[in-house]
């Protein structure tokens, strides 16, 4: 059975999507145009992440993948886009042979080769998005555009942060974000503003934003396992927070699919233990400043309230040590 203890952390700091640009964080519609529109990345932790993701999908299929039967055509569109991106960006790792509708997709990292008939889901071992998603470390969520809103109709989610593909299946963007109790700096409802923004996204012009959280020694926190991770959060102490608490960063990319008009969310989740923040002093300073200043409702909403004080205390002790070292020199 899958263990949730976190075995991996980001080692390539140059690609870690550090979320803070100032020492004060509040929710805002911080979407930006995506400079590199190709979302396929092969990180040093690729094998570990993808193997873990596949294990989760194998052991918990109803939790990790959900779809409606009418979405197959949309899923093929996503499969095609991801394969084209993968082979374009990393031809050393991925290869596709297209002979009309007869396709062969190769993943050289795992030494895998799959032949299938494009458009015929019966020739794949899983539904199209579920199949292709197992070759990348990202989570994928397909939100279908209808009546000025988006509805979650397909989701492959292995890094949940207070989320469940099973529960959120079929919900509108507004319903999924219903608990957001905050308003942005400008005073507008954040979810409403983001939804309106997503409506304006055009094919070929994806956007991105970065979301962050803290994780207490967990790969993910979904609704299905609240009874397990809920109590565990209070086991964090200032002494163990450096190793056990991770800065969880979710780089979100939003693509308008040209044929279905749906929006594909591609989520790249990375983790950095608090103790590794000192590898980049600026990251340590910003994170320490942000975490000291988190309003209580935001901490509750993010699910970090039970271990935020211990995490801040850990950072405070490091900060004091650093200052003492400077004074002693």
């Amino acid at each position, binding site marked *: 059975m899958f263990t949730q203890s976190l075995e991996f952390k980001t080692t390539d700091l140059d690609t870690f999507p550090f979320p803070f640009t100032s020492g004060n964080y509040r929710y805002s519609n911080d979407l930006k145009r995506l400079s590199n529109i190709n979302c396929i990345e092969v990180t040093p932790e690729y094998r570990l992440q993808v193997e873990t993701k596949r294990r989760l999908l194998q052991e918990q299929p109803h939790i990790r993948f959900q779809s409606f039967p009418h979405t197959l055509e949309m899923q093929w569109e996503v499969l095609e886009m991801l394969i084209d991106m993968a082979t374009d960006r990393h031809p050393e790792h991925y290869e596709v042979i297209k002979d009309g509708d007869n396709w062969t997709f190769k993943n050289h990292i795992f030494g895998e080769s799959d032949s299938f008939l494009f458009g015929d889901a019966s020739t794949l071992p899983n539904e199209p998005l579920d199949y292709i998603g197992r070759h990348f470390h990202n989570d994928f969520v397909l939100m279908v555009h209808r009546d000025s809103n988006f509805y979650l109709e397909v989701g492959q989610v292995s890094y949940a942060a207070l989320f469940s593909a*099973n529960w959120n299946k*079929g919900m509108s963007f507004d319903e999924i974000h219903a*608990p957001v109790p905050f308003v942005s700096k400008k005073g507008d409802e954040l979810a409403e503003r983001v939804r309106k923004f997503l409506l304006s996204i055009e094919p070929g012009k994806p956007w991105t934003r970065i979301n962050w959280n803290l994780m207490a020694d967990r790969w993910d926190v979904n609704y*299905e396992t*609240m*009874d397990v991770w809920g109590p565990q959060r209070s086991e964090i102490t200032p002494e163990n927070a450096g190793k056990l608490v991770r800065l969880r960063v979710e780089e979100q990319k939003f693509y308008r699919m040209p044929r279905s008009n749906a929006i594909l969310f591609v989520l790249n989740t990375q983790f950095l233990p608090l103790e590794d923040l000192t590898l980049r002093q600026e990251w340590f300073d910003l994170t320490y400043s942000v975490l000291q200043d988190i309003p209580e409702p935001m901490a509750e909403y993010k699910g970090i309230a039970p271990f935020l004080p211990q995490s801040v205390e850990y950072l405070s002790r490091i900060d004091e040590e650093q200052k003492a070292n400077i004074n002693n020199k």
Partner: protein
Amino acid sequence: MYNSPVLFDKSVTIVNHFTPRNERRKFVVISDPAGYEKVKNFTSEIAGKVPVECLSINGMDDKEEIKRFILSQKMGTQFYIAAAWNNAVMVFSLGVEAGLSEDEIQTVIIGPKRRYVYCMKCFEVSEVAEEAIAECDHCSASLEIGPFYSIVREGYIGYPFIPVAKEEVIGS
């Protein structure tokens, strides 16, 4: 369609008293024996203002007749349902199946409403009272009932938790 409205205890169509929608071309009133009195009062209130058609039902045995009756109505009709929970759910569902929106239906529930929780452990629904916590009928998980409702799952979210007594046993 998966996102068609379903009737649940906090549905927007559930009202305490019917409101005449005089901009509609016709009113259709459907009631079971429990809703008879409610309908009688309403129909006297609106008499002569808008054309009204009434249908009295007994229960599931009348399903086909209700279906035909709803399908025979024209656009611009406002539907009023006064019934006990099970009958109200049946009529509401048939209305939605026929293409009605929630705006075109008002429902008065006679007697108790039913409420369901969706267990995030076993993905089954259990009937619950108006309470903050419950036990899943299927897997016995302790559930904290959240405020969010899923029309796909047809229940409120049930967050699993370990009650204090059990937590002590596990930790001991």
